């Protein structure tokens, strides 16, 4: 009933501000580089025929979206494995083995589906299928491995790998466009392959190998159970990927339906919506928050009540700072993107950039709250918040045929609702922090 003789733990100071800032910078650095390189590559693609442009864009974006969707549970799994007693012995390495196996199976399944599509419709070339399946495999493995680095908060490795790999992708793509534009995809695959290869090598060096013998199959079984018991987190991760891309998919598919052709990728909406995503860089606030509150969270139940309350008050302060930082940086990015759009792009694109940008300001807050709510066992609130985005995006479909901007408006409205929902709930929980913290435990005990 009681554990007596505990050594009383003193309040653990939170990670210093400078260390947290470095962590958050490392978190967004690869995002900046990949966004920049992607913009440059897409601008090169404009030199090709419209059909080729569409095909390449569809393949690259499709593989990114599908791999992210498929590997979304791995994010949650890796975070959980860090604390899972079942995986005490070399847990991350074992999780990675299972994740890579899962990534392989998933890529094969997706490739088979793509092949079926290929045989049903002769729009794509066989090289397109090869391009697509290779990218799905590369990205799936990359997400699996990087999720391990993120879970252990070793942002430096994915930052280095992504920066280096994307610079090489850019150089190889540039050369191939100069010499053999039609074989651009081979250069792209070669560069992209560096992502899982380099990440894998680093993971082999960094993560401790298990001392005992653990079969991959039994680990997969345990991970499956872990996913089942954390279904809400998985749904959140999947929905998060879906809502990021759903507005674009709606526009592409509706464009295809109107013109009775294949999905139209190269459009003002694509440019506007992707540029509008730039404020998502405000997630640096989330990285800052998780880094600074790591020890406060770890030792949240330790010490006297006065010590717990002191720690809670520190946590709240950091939350408010991070909230302001996320929103403020997201607003700044929106303004910057808006200004650039105002100077360089037509009104049609600018309007999409600003709409999506404001939506992203809200989305960043939803993400920040998503890292607070599990403390109180309220993961479902974050899931409901992203679900509301999904609903509004779907609700925009009838209007998109009239004007593609409505997809962005759906994204914005959904995010605004999700933002209110998640912020109100988080504020309510934070107001009675200690009570809600222990209440969650009691509810777990009485489950």
């Amino acid at each position, binding site marked *: 009933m009681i554990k007596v003789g505990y050594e*009383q733990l003193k309040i653990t100071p939170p990670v210093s501000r400078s260390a947290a800032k470095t962590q958050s910078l490392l978190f967004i650095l690869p995002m900046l580089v990949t966004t920049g390189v992607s913009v440059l590559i897409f601008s090169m693609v404009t030199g090709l025929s419209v059909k080729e442009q569409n095909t390449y864009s569809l393949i690259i974006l499709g593989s990114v979206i599908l791999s992210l969707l498929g590997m979304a549970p791995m994010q949650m799994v890796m975070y959980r494995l860090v604390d899972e007693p079942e995986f005490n012995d070399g847990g991350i390495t074992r999780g990675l083995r299972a994740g890579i196996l899962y990534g392989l199976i998933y890529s094969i399944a997706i490739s088979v589906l793509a092949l079926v599509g290929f045989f049903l419709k002769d729009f794509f070339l066989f090289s397109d299928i090869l391009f697509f399946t290779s990218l799905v495999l590369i990205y799936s493995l990359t997400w699996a491995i990087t999720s391990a680095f993120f879970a252990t908060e070793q942002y430096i490795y994915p930052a280095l790998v992504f920066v280096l790999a994307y610079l090489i992708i850019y150089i190889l793509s540039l050369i191939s466009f100069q010499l053999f534009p039609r074989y651009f995809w081979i250069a792209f695959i070669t560069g992209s392959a560096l992502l899982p290869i380099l990440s894998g090598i680093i993971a082999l060096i960094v993560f401790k190998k298990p001392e005992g013998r653990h079969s991959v199959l039994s680990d997969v079984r345990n991970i499956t159970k872990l996913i089942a018991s954390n279904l809400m987190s998985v749904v959140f991760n999947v929905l998060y990927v879906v809502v990021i891309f759903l507005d674009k998919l709606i526009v592409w598919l509706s464009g295809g339906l109107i013109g009775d052709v294949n999905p139209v990728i190269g459009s003002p909406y694509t440019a506007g919506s992707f540029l509008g995503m730039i404020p998502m860089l405000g997630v640096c606030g989330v990285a800052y928050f998780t880094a600074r509150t790591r020890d406060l969270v770890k030792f949240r*139940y330790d010490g006297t009540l006065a*010590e717990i309350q002191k720690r809670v008050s520190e946590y709240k302060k950091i939350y408010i700072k991070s909230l302001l930082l996320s929103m403020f940086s997201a607003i700044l990015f929106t303004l910057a993107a808006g200004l650039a759009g105002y100077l360089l792009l037509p009104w049609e694109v600018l309007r999409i950039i600003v709409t999506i940008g404001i939506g992203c300001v809200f989305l960043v807050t939803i993400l920040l709250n998503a890292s607070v709510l599990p403390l109180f066992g309220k993961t479902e609130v974050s899931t409901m918040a992203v679900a509301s985005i999904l609903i509004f995006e779907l609700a925009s479909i009838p209007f998109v045929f009239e004007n593609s901007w409505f997809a962005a408006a759906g994204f914005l409205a959904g995010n605004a609702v999700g933002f209110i929902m998640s912020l109100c709930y988080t504020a309510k929980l934070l107001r009675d922090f200690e009570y809600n913290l222990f*209440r969650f435990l009691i509810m777990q005990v009485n489950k």
Partner: protein
Amino acid sequence: MKVCLISEGSYPVISGGLSEWAHMLIKALKDIEFSIFCIIPFEEEKPWRYEKLPNIRTVVVKPIIRTHTSGSGELTDHTIEVIMKEFLDLIREPRSWDMKSLLGATGFRPPDRKLFNTREYWNFMIYQYNLACPDYRFADYFWGIYGIHQIMLDSLNFAEEIPEADLYHCLSVGFAGLAGAIAKELYNRPVVLTEQGLYLVERRKELSRANVPSWYEKQLMNLSENLVKTSYYYADKIVPPCHSHIAVEKQLGADLSKIVVINNGIEAERFVPAEKKPGEVPVVGCFARVVPIKGITNLIQAAGIVCKKHKVEFVVLGDIVDRQYHSQCEELIEMLGLQDNFHFMGHVNPVEWYHKVDIFTLSSISEGVPYALLEAMSCGLPAVCTGVGGIPEIITPDTGFVVPPEQPEVLADRLSILVENKDLRLSMGKRATQLVQEKYTIRMMADNFRNLYESLLK
């Protein structure tokens, strides 16, 4: 007549002295229909340890510590307030709980465990923590007290589980007594409470041996005292097996007019004297489990004194429960050079050994009314025992000696008298057999209880 016997951690699924007592009582009261409400510590399947007697109609076994329970009682602000203030508060002065307002507040149904999720409960915990131990690790305090509260709240489930009867007989205070109080409030039937051992004294000893923080010990002791006071308050008759319990019971708030002593009884026909062979080395037998409370080290010291003058053999007959204490005893035996004279025999057939032993001894620091003493006396053994619990009321000057506890020299002196004087041993033994037959038979005990039941039902 339908009697519901309420037991806690004993009859019929856990064996021991109290269970034997209950079994004998039911067996002797053949014409009374019994139902058993047995409270056990944990949720587990427990097989019967006793022959299923034909006059036992129903047996309900319920745990104190429950993993899952869904109380059906509605949780209003009033219910929460009453439960916390009147029931769960373990910092206030110990008192008898007001079962009427407590059960009335919950509509005579067990309250929902959701009570623990409420803000009121959280505030109550914080308040209690700040009063009890604001410098202690909060999580430990919270879970420690929450565990106690959970057990307390779950015990109110008894209201839906206890069988209906004409009369309730609690075999002990504590949760059995609480169940009796609940039954009294529910059915307004008389409640008899027997107290073989003194619950609070035993809890205090248990807790002093367990290494727990002072705030925890205090609140657990308060819980025990609340249980005792409630049991006494709701009982129509309190039945100790000896007069020595009365003072303690009175001190804990028992109404003197409710107390009636009924001597324990044994099946005297099972415990008859045997012929002793002449010229053998006298054997002194201590029929007790090897635990510190039995004061075995005092007996070893006394044996050291006796063996210097006489050729005597000492045997301890009972389970070695406390290994550490047993090692201490062995060390002392070696130190005093008693390896050939002092032996631990473990669990034995008592009747067989009553016949092998010449003198019965108990060196206990605390006791209730030991059955072994009555059985040994019935078998014609003179006794030398410490004057604790009900022992001084049983041993008369012509059946043995009563010595002060923890004084090995006095114990040795009295044992020496009996070792030296075989005739005295025999005469005291003979008288002891007579005394048991006159005052301590199961028939007498059963008749006394029957009369008590009938008087309460009139």
